[in-house]
């Protein structure tokens, strides 16, 4: 993979999971662009976000996949989960049903993904303490039982947003997984560079 001078870059696919309206995209927008949009419609228009994070002397470049709304009727494709180094399962602390469904997403992830995926449980909308319906202790206990790590976040006020990605990056670097030998070739938009040599080869 690419290597900067004196610095190692670790590429990592990170996927978001969670109920419609839990704030998955808001979390990413806050992390990547420092933005928050009130009353955002379901996720449209973005397939990936990319953001680089420095952890001590190393760098993690996250390729963050958003669901593009395919989670609404439980229609995420296997390619969404495949090769994910990390996942953030998001629920809304003001909505107990979203926590119930977050647990199901965790089960789905464990069925679909690989054993080494780092999973974070994010209780979002932590700024709305007055409307809280999911106790932090309950979520924390669930996370511990299932090998996840837990943080309450607020995309609106930026509470713990950078921290949750930073914590994932740290865990990734601790794991030090070797790059997958199965990695395939990605098509890119530089086909013309080889056209001349191709035609000279055959002429």
């Amino acid at each position, binding site marked *: *993979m*690419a290597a900067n001078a004196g610095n190692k870059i670790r590429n990592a696919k990170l996927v978001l999971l969670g*109920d*419609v309206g839990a704030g998955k995209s808001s979390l990413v927008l806050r992390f*990547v*662009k420092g933005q928050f949009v009130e009353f955002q419609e379901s996720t*449209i*228009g*973005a*397939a*990936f*976000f*990319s*953001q*680089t994070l420095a952890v001590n002397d190393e760098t993690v470049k996250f390729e963050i996949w958003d669901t*593009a*709304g*395919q*989670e*609404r*009727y*439980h*229609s*995420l*494709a*296997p*390619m*969404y*989960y*495949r*090769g994910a180094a990390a996942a953030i399962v998001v629920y809304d602390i003001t909505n107990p049903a979203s926590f119930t*469904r977050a647990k*199901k*997403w965790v*089960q*789905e992830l464990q*069925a*679909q*993904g*690989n054993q080494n995926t780092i999973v974070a449980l994010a209780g979002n909308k932590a700024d709305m303490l007055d409307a809280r319906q999911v106790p932090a202790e309950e979520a924390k206990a669930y996370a511990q039982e299932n090998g996840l790590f837990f943080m309450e976040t607020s995309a609106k006020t930026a509470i713990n947003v950078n921290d949750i990605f930073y914590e994932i990056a740290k865990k990734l670097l601790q794991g030090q997984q070797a790059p*997958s030998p*199965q*990695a*395939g*070739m*990605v*098509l*890119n*938009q*530089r*086909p013309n*560079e*080889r*056209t001349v*040599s*191709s*035609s000279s*080869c*055959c*002429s």
Partner: protein
Amino acid sequence: MAEAGADSSNAAVDGGGGSVQNDYPTIDPTSFDVVLCGTGLPESVLAAACAAAGKTVLHVDPSPFYGSLYSSIQLSSLASFLSREATPPTSTVAAAASDWHTVVDLHRRIVYSEVETSGAAPEPARRFTIDLVGPRVLYCADEAVDLLLRSGGSHHVEFKSVEGGSLLYWEGCLYPVPDSRQAIFKDTTLKLKEKNILFRFFKLVQAHIAAASASADETGQGDAPARILEEDLDLPFVEFLKKQGLPPKMRAVVLYAIAMADYNQDGADPCEKLITTREGIDTIALYSSSIGRFANAEGTFIYPMYGHGELPQAFCRCAAVKGAIYVLRMPVVALLMDEEKKHFVGARLVSGQDILCQQLIIDPSYKTILDVPFDGSDSHFPRKVVRGVCIISKSVKQGSSNVLVIFPPKSLEEQQVTAVRLLQLSSNLAVCPPGMFMSYLSTPCTDVSVGKQCIKKAIDALYSPQASDGSEDHLETASESTEDVKPTLIWSCVYVQEITQGTAGPLLSCPMPDEYLDYRNILGSTKKLFASIYADEEFLPKKSAPVYANDDSDSAE
């Protein structure tokens, strides 16, 4: 490492809104510009194109996985998929049950038949992924690649090369296909005379292709001597090759292994099965422009990791990113027509919910009672393809992972009037465990029994049955001095698939997987279907791909 397998979990995870009955969700909103039933490649490309054109799209599939007839499914699910029952036809159009719509029942067509399996499926079955469209590849320079790049789908799929190249089965031996100047030079099985003839032929073709593209650029005025004569272009390609002095084996290389002709070009078959020089050269142009197109691809062809089911998934994700709504596990049981039965106005879901739309698009495994008059004409000359899938113990070409093998017409038996293609895939595509290989075979046929016989003979030619002790069964590989032991056939499945074309009209039906090695014909039909409903819209314009924040993606190898 991620497990291979396109099947979604069947766990009842309800990620969406509340359900009305039988745990089916209620779809909100209830009307769309376009409703598509089935997530095969043509339907998925159409969903992406419609969403990119700003249409509201609902895309449903009765299965828990994407792909329909273009799926990659686990070995353990193959038998049930191939034996899916057709619904019995209703004798009459159902009386209007809803307030103002006429309801037309939707039935499933029998697509697969005559399934024969032999050998024991190896464990664990979930580690083997079967492609229903196989054998199938993408040329590096073909339309499918350009569509992936334009739509942004290329971000979602990774590929491996068919790096072992192509082999020709000729007189009981496998020969490397010399498909470029470099390959001709390297080839140790060709005689010097054969090399010279073939080299001159390729030089002529390349000069013609260069002159034709220069002409298209309007810069090559007066380059006439380099071009092939118009009268030669309209000749059957086989006649042109004879004029160029190519001997039979070299003609077979060009016709079946490079120009990919399906039918015997030397027989007394109907004229429409003969390819013209023009058609042959078009495919040679695609073939040669594919070599070296991508710096990290070796050879002409690439294959999607995890199987061809990844391609529909990629286009569906592109559509979702543009706002299309996706619902798996949602059968459509009927279509809705206006009272005069002139237009389709929607679809009835299995949940009982009616969805209204301007345009309905269905997967080819569906049919309605209204199809009966057309089925009558269709059934006179049904196109069929015999497909085979094998699991084998080692590569047919030592040291190569992914290889294409071509059996020209009559190379297996006298009755073989069509070419048989075999594509071997390895675990580097994550379609099987290390140490095993998958092989896909196909041949188009009008006579099913001859087609199946040819597929079986091709399997017998390359592989030993499991019972054999292996020491007595050899396959001569002409490029090597010693004889190789044949790979062992662990498991195989041979079946017949019906082929229907896409149809435009009140109800838009997509094409089935065809007999060809690539998707050109299917994507050509899909593009025409899009033009038939949105004539003024561009089909996946070049800027369809979303802009990515900090996108500096590089190619990984």
